[in-house]
């Protein structure tokens, strides 16, 4: 008798330990590419940490309280799974879409930037409220909607009236997906939504698929016979802004095995150059990406001198501007499709898909 109790005890003990171990293992590989957030597990308790990309310090930390778990007084607590959310950035909508969680969205920021048809429909019918900017009226809408969480693009400052919202039980989470410089790092933020919505498994699985597909394409691109030269960016007034060598787009170009003209420059943001400079350096560059125009006539209307670029003369210009909203909503969570586009455009020698998802060649 006693002996069986001992066996039971040992059995329970070891299986508990392995359960605990599994959670701990997940913690080890939780976030691979993203640098601005962490999901940590200590035993049965899950924590979400948001890291400010400027200071590299933890900006805010949340305890994700599951049902039955005790409260914690020392840090912000979010009861998971959350029922409703204010998704204030396009990228959030794309991610929630992949988790089939669009129904949890009650508030978005600006209807003009929505691509997803069902969200648009709900905005029109009033089921989803839009807040436009982030002024005082918008906070009222958020309060009225009684969402559990507000996800907004972080800038190092708290969300307006954050304290008021907290007292009403609404947590504001600053998202820094937009400050990730690796395409997979940006996509990885789906895991944040996963843990909030209780769809952690789905989020991790989805990301694994994306990761695999993306990395396969990187390998594929390496095998291409050519590495076409490309320049990027456009004029704003008198200044030309092009992605710097350490920026998100530069990484994308690198992964697509492109010879990006400014790939050796420093910086994670944009280079600002004069038009003269850019023309000097790129009059004969073969391809132009992201001119921020929908057609050649649009482009030349903005600045007729663009016609001097060889890329323009040969019409080798590609952009996603004709479906901006669609791009911003979906490209973050489907980086493999963006990469696929680049490979399709620039490496016709490789066996790639026959369609373009986001990019289009500029028409007249």
């Amino acid at each position, binding site marked *: 008798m006693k002996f069986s109790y001992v066996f039971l005890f040992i059995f329970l003990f070891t299986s508990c330990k392995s359960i605990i171990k599994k959670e701990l293992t997940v913690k080890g590989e939780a976030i691979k590419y993203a640098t601005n957030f962490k999901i940590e597990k200590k035993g049965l308790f899950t924590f979400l940490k948001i890291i400010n990309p400027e200071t590299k310090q933890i900006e805010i930390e949340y305890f994700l309280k599951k049902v039955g778990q005790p409260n914690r007084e020392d840090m912000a607590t979010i009861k998971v799974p959350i029922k409703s959310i204010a998704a204030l950035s396009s990228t959030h909508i794309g991610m929630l879409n992949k988790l089939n969680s669009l129904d949890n969205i009650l508030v978005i920021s600006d209807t003009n930037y929505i691509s997803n048809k069902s969200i648009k429909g709900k905005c029109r019918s009033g089921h989803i409220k839009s807040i436009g900017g982030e002024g005082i009226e918008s906070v009222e809408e958020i309060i009225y909607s009684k969402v559990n969480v507000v996800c907004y693009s972080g800038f190092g400052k708290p969300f307006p009236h954050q304290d008021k919202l907290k007292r009403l039980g609404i947590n504001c989470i600053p998202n820094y997906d937009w400050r990730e410089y690796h395409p997979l790092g940006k996509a990885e933020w789906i895991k944040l939504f996963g843990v909030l919505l209780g769809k952690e498994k789905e989020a991790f699985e989805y990301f694994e698929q994306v990761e695999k597909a993306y990395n396969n394409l990187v390998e594929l691109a390496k095998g291409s016979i050519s590495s076409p030269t490309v320049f990027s960016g456009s004029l704003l*007034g008198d200044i030309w802004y092009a992605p710097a060598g350490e920026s998100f787009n530069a990484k994308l170009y690198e992964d697509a095995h492109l010879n990006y003209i400014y790939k050796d420059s420093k910086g994670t943001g944009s280079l600002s150059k004069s038009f003269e400079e850019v023309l*000097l350096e790129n009059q004969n560059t073969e391809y132009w990406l992201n001119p921020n125009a929908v057609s050649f006539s649009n482009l030349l209307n903005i*600045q007729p001198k663009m016609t001097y670029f060889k890329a323009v003369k040969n019409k080798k210009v590609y952009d996603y501007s004709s479906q901006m909203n669609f791009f911003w909503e979906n490209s973050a969570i489907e980086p493999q499709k963006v990469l696929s586009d680049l490979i399709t455009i620039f490496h016709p020698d490789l066996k790639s898909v026959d369609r373009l998802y986001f990019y289009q060649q500029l028409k007249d």
Partner: protein
Amino acid sequence: MAILHITEGQFDLDLNLMKKALFSFDSTDTYQVIFRDFRLPRLFMGIIAGSGLAISGLLMQTLFNNPLAGPYILGINSGASLFAAFSIMTGVSFFTSQFGTIASSLLGAFIFGIIILSFSLFVRSRISLLLIGVMLGSFSGALITVIQSMSNAFQLKKFTIWTMGSLQQVSFSDFPMIILFYFIALFLLVFTIKPLNTLVIGEEAAGLLGIPVKLVRIILIFITAILTGLITAYCGPIAFVGLAVPNLVKLLFKTQNHSTLILGSFVFGILFMLFSDWLVQFLWSEIHLPLNAITSLIGAPFVILLILRKLA
């Protein structure tokens, strides 16, 4: 100054190159392209804008007997600004696809020019005309604010950049039209010299000396509208040149003879403009300063000195 201006940039030019670019243009030679469609237009626009704004400022100062008047006093450029705002910040496809910003603001300048001219036909006193001009400016400013409130961050930035002024938006192909209107304005200017010299002692006194004051007023406004409208459409609203230069010229030459003043405004307007733009290019590697920042930084202290002098 012109030579200094045109050569400041990312690389050096030589005479042969310039000749080639003008007479046997090869659009694949980058250096030629840059000279002809970048440097030359900047120089050209600097000359037109500098002289045009300075002369317009002089005309307005004499018309209103007020040294603090400038070319924008009748709200002429607010039409250009309003339509530029339409073009840049709204999604109205008429403006974004058919016209570029330049064409839109030319249209706006034209429309507002007609409005002002129509008013000047009916209105008796200069004060009333002034008030109308101020109201027009306020009205279009209010409309611009409305447009801004409905725009996104990117559009706002684009518009703000437009208001900072630039000599670089003009192309070689724009030259003929600009030259045409510029010379129309200059031609009319000749006939205003004697009336301007007389207006110095006041509109009433000038009228009693046989000057057809109403007609002269209309011509002066017409000239200002052409010059200011043209310049604002191609360059955005450039600050201070029209205000500071005529006063500087009067102080330097100590005369009210408008033949001298017009010529002086012409020369010094160009110098001021080319110098400011040269400074923009010169400082480029350190900092990208907008044109209006420089004209204001130089012009504003000067205007303050002027006011102090007037009060003393």
